[in-house]
């Protein structure tokens, strides 16, 4: 053996001596959990996919449910519409065990659902998906004028804000007057 070869072989990482992973350690069967939204439609999701949600991951991490127990106890998310939960579950499945890319083309395209999706994703604490959604929201106003931004983001004008403030003050005044009158009545 030449000196170069010796040098190379000593510097190179040692050949793996262990048997392939499948033979060394039996593959642990993937566990599944069940979730449902407002529509009560139950979705079966793997623990791997659910890892994206910090909220659910925290809930299931110490449960140790059997398949039957998990099936019998789906996690209820009554504050999330069924179709939105479906979108979230699909996204979690698509990104299961994968590093999330900087730009996501698998985001739901329906803009009308974006608001509900953002609320759901925020509630479920799916950080990467929330970032993608927020990017999409930010993109909505690219190159737009303040007037257009106001329409897109539903921001009231100064006049509308002032009117709402007046209205709120009026209501607060009425409520306070009502409370004073009620208190006076009680005192009598």
């Amino acid at each position: 053996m030449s000196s170069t070869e010796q040098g190379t072989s000593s510097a190179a990482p040692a050949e793996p001596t262990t048997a392939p992973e499948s033979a060394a350690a039996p593959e642990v069967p993937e566990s599944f959990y069940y979730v449902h939204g407002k529509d009560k439609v139950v979705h079966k999701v793997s623990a791997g996919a659910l890892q994206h949600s910090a909220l659910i991951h925290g809930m299931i991490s110490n449960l140790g449910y059997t398949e039957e127990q998990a099936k019998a106890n789906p996690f209820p998310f009554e504050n999330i519409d069924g179709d939105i939960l479906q979108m979230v579950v699909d996204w979690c499945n698509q990104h299961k065990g994968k590093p999330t890319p900087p730009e996501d083309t698998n985001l739901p395209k329906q803009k009308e659902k974006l608001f509900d999706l953002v609320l759901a994703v925020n509630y479920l604490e799916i950080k990467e998906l929330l970032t993608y959604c927020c990017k999409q929201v930010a993109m909505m106003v690219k190159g737009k004028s303040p007037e257009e931004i106001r329409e897109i983001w539903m921001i009231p004008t100064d006049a509308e804000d002032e009117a709402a403030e007046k209205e709120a003050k009026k209501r607060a005044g009425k409520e306070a007057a009502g409370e004073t009158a009620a208190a006076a009545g009680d005192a009598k």
Partner: protein
Amino acid sequence: MPFPILRTPVVVLSEIISILEPNETVTASFCSKNFKRLLKNQYQQMKPLMWAICMIDFENDRRVIIVKSGIEANVLSAVHISKFNESTSKVVEINGYKIEFSPEYPILYFEDQELGSKWIVDYVTDLLNIDVRGLAIGRSSAWTVDWINKRQEKPLNRFALFKPTSNNSNADESMDYVLKNVRSSDFIGINEDVSDNYRFNGKLGPVKELAISRNGYWVTCDNLMNFDAIAIYIGRSRLTVSILNLFLRHWRAGGSPRLEYLEVFFENGTVFENTFDGDLEIVRTNEVGTYPVSYGEPVVIRNCYRVQRTDGIMALVDCDRQRFYMIVQHEKASH
């Protein structure tokens, strides 16, 4: 389909705002007083430290730009009302000012140009809660130097003075004012056509880099000795080799202690026959000197000379008909 941003949780709102580009943030701030307040509060909490506000005030070009990750973006501009074209410009009036919203950035129309410049800078710095870090001006905007000094404690990072397109005002006066008052920590760039009689008798610096790019004929030996900078570049210089000998003598005695790099480009070419004065104890060397200049590839000098300071620090110097180089080897002294 609209997105009711104000109904989102605070965490989400903050995330969306943090994603906005600087020009989008400024444009969005004109949506309403309340929305501006909301943006302002957000930026007060999460200071966009990686954003640098720069003011440009050069003749009719009055803009605020923000540099983010090395990329410059215009965010607000002030234009004289005479440029306002009622038939083509679609404007709205906010606080009595006419504002035109282009897809890139808003343009404010002003009668008083100085007021316009101040207004746009105040607006952006107030919104984002950060100081002005860069200033690029022309001769007629020397007032901005003092104005910046008064409005913020921190000095600028970068400053540049450009010569005007028409040479019809007093360059010497504005140049003197600028040189005496400017405070910039990283870079001072001067490119101004002063008169042949102009002399500067103040101090400049401390600054990391001083570039008197194309018109350095006014720089004297005294100036060179009084510049407190790490890297100095002087273009179109009238310094001679005998003057540079004086400078080297000053340096050897401990003058200009922070200097790492000096490059002088001679206006007319200099006769470099008598080499350096004997008392400087300059010796030829085959060492190679390298300095990573900010304006291009690192400067490399070979077959040059070595000069030593009384405290042991050495420098490599080189000179031909066009240029004089000096690279101080501070790192060698510390090893």
